């Protein structure tokens, strides 16, 4: 298990910002570790919009917001003392996105499994995820990325920041 590589699951929410803050506090001082903040694009459902133009507009808006949130997360890690060379951000486009440019994309059926795939492919030893603190009913109906990561993770450590 490579304890020198940490992957933070990030979606710009308050919970994922807490995960970044915690990682900054843990990894900011001491030996250098590679910290990657990864966001998976989650475009809104196309069918919720009356036409494709308004859907594309909303997709573009969300992409702008997540890039800004990723930049803020990077600043937070640098401010905690991590070297710029050891902090990465990564944005994985959705295969459903009308704005997609890269060949690699997320099919979007499970954000948790996408995060674990990134961790596996990149040889990360630790995955950090924020937790919303949802009720059992909410978790049943809407799912929970953190729960799914805990259930499906193998061969790595999972830090859950609640």
């Amino acid at each position, binding site marked *: 298990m490579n304890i020198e590589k940490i992957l933070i699951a990030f979606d710009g929410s308050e919970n994922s910002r807490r995960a970044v803050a915690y990682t900054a506090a843990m990894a900011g001082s001491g030996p250098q570790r590679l910290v990657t903040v990864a966001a998976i694009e989650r475009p809104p459902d196309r069918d919720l919009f009356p036409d494709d133009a308004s859907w594309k507009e909303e997709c573009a808006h969300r992409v702008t917001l997540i890039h800004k949130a990723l930049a803020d997360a990077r600043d937070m890690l640098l401010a905690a003392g991590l070297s710029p060379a050891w902090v990465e951000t990564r944005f994985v486009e959705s295969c459903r996105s009308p704005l997609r440019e890269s060949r690699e994309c997320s099919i979007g059926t499970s954000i948790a499994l996408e995060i674990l795939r990134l961790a596996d492919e990149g040889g990360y030893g630790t995955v950090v995820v924020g937790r919303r603190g949802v009720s059992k009913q909410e978790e049943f*109906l809407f799912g929970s990325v953190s729960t799914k990561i805990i259930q499906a993770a193998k061969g790595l450590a999972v830090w859950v920041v609640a």
Partner: protein
Amino acid sequence: MPPSARALLARLAPDFPARHVGEIYTETTEFMRIGHGDVINLGERHFLVLRDEAERRFGLEDPKFWVKRCRDLQTGQRRILKLVFHESFPMTIGSMVVTCTRSPRKESRILDLVRGDDRFMQGETIPDTAGNPVRILDVVPGKRLDEKIEALEMPHRDYFFELFPEVLTHFIEACQAIAWLHARNEKHGDVRRDHLYVRYDSGTYTWIDFDYTFDFQDSPFGLDLFGLGNIIQFLVGMGQHTTQSVPPEVRARITTEDCSIMFPNRIVNLRKLFPYVPEALNNVLLRFSMAANVFYDATPDLIRDLERALDAVRSQR
């Protein structure tokens, strides 16, 4: 004012009473104005409107003014025309509120996808002159599954051993149909027991109504799975059982954990009511109970467990 349908109906539907003849509509945006005796003209095709469809739930008729029961004037066949009606509304599920949206283009896309597959209702889309995608649906030749089950007059034990294995076999096929949609990144959107029909000819279970959608980012198929769970509870129980509907001595044995995670009065641990329900089947039901800690998030997982449950049911016969 749209033109009169008098001459057209005299030619194509001479049996139709002249006093009810209405107008010809080539544009359906104002669907409330279109009613009995009017004709909807889409391209080369003409549909005589007979009435608005209505949904019967909880003993009440809920009219659907955007859904017209029609006669295809070229073929004489019955058709259902779904006109464009955009709405978003809060749907209450137990203590939760979910925003649902009606999406004509989603339904059109799924109709194209499932063409020729009798596990799904069939139809096509033709735009009206304003560009509204009008869905022209075949009437499913069958009966609602829940009505068939509710009409049974036999003890549960007899139902469970004589009829249920076949019901479960067909229901697994219906779940496979939903999994087939999910594998293509589509969801049904409104999986309910009154949206599943049993075909008169083949006995195949056929899903209807695909126009609902919802935005669940972390669990895109969560609501479909929840719907499948509700149906299997209904099928195993030969109806729904609540803490209010069972005798007091049975109620005394029921705990919170025996009930549905979303509906606290609905009993899902049916083995407590019918001890011959095999554990493999009851375990599927318990995944939808308050006792569950792990939930289904993929339809193939539910299907795998139902297939094991079917083996267990058959081995008890």
